[in-house]
């Protein structure tokens, strides 16, 4: 195939935008975002499209147009479940889920207020992992649910009784453990993570 023949694997069919979002995403995800012709198959396949403010096909279009700020402030990148329906059904092999995941990683340092709870859950999960190398559900739920903003949100939505019942049932069934298990490899992991942050 010559350079003149367009193909779904030819990166970057569109002109670069000033902020370089398209090139950055294509390079990081290894996919050709320019190949999208807005057939909306991704959005039709997505199980949570109804909860998204920017639908998956629009995310791809916005990347093409360089709308970085709007994308990083969207609820979409946080409600996406990475179930990869979109990627699997894209006729042009655009890795839609990969693009959204890349945007989520970019948005993580300053998530929008509307998605703060979702970002906090992921962060508490990683904290657990850093301490123990494994995740203990009791510690994770305790760490997450005692964040003042989360507790307040659950009080307002009336979720507390249901969640207390769920937690109590799991505890009674012996499925939650007070003492977290630790992987013996966790020290090596710490050394690696320290190096990463110093770089």
């Amino acid at each position: 195939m010559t350079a003149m023949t367009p193909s779904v694997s030819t990166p970057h069919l569109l002109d670069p935008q000033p902020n370089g979002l398209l090139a950055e995403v294509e390079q990081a995800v290894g996919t050709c975002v320019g190949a999208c012709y807005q057939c909306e198959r991704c959005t039709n396949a997505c199980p949570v499209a109804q909860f998204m403010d920017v639908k998956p096909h629009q995310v791809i279009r916005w990347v093409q147009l360089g709308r970085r700020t709007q994308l990083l402030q969207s609820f979409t990148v946080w409600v996406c479940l990475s179930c990869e329906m979109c990627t699997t059904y894209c006729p042009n092999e655009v890795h839609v889920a990969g693009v959204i995941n890349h945007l989520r990683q970019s948005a993580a340092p300053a998530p929008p207020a509307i998605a703060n709870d979702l970002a906090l859950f992921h962060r508490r999960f990683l904290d657990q992992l850093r301490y123990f190398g494994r995740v203990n559900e009791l510690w994770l739920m305790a760490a997450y649910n005692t964040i003042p903003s989360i507790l307040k949100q659950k009080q307002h939505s009336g979720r507390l009784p249901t969640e207390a019942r769920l937690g109590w049932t799991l505890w009674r069934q012996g499925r939650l453990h007070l003492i977290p298990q630790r992987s013996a490899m966790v020290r090596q992991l710490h050394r690696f993570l320290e190096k990463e942050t110093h770089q």
Partner: protein
Amino acid sequence: MNLAFYPGCSLQGVARDYSGSIYAVFRHLGFDLTELADWFCCGASAAHSLDEDLALALPAGNLFLAEKAGRDIVVPCAMCFNRLSHARHILGQEPVHLPWPVKGQAQVHDMTRLLSQPETLARIQSLVKRPLKGLRVVCYYGCQMVRPPRITGFADYENPQTLDLLARATGADVRDWSYKATCCGASIGVSRPEVGNALCLRLVDKARQAGAEAFVVSCPLCQMNLDKLGIEAPSQAMPVFYITELLELALNGRTEPGRFRMHLTDPGALLRGRGF
């Protein structure tokens, strides 16, 4: 075949019962199942979402442990399977900077695919003591086990069969349906229960339309999400079995006492009604 069992965090916590039934079934089939020593979390969706380096370093570390032990990994959890397979895929493609000298040689087996290989399946069929005749089920795979196919190796990702084959081997009446691999919401239910429950209730609805009275799953998170409808929406909930629970029941004729005690949607009435 030398297998290292990678239980993942769930199977040591809320899905403890799943772990019990897995050991029971593997013992019955004569497989040696040794837990991978010192394993750590695969990173799940949190590492995948926030930290790309960690999302590779964690599963790669587990591959390293398996390599050192000279064993292949068998994984029951769909998410762990996905992350470990993903790491193996990356290791085979490009040089990466990692805290462990890992080559990515250890194979990563999804537990259901391992058990549904023709010889093993034939053995299961020949060992069934008590066919679960008349138990109408649908098999639910979830997303992480089958997608993306280039990583998971599931060529039949639209209509996967591993759980169907195993459930059919127990003698259950396995119904066909179109929502085998539609996401259950994973961990989103923790912060957004309305989203998680909407997805799960749709699955229940579609399963009922297919004539099912129970789900069969292999992913502990899918099980939790569907099973917890017993507390969130009791009038609509449907029992959710791990595939190994049904296998144990069919192979042994009975399960260990209290095996189903940890279900949130009690399958007791259903099982008694069918005489199991």
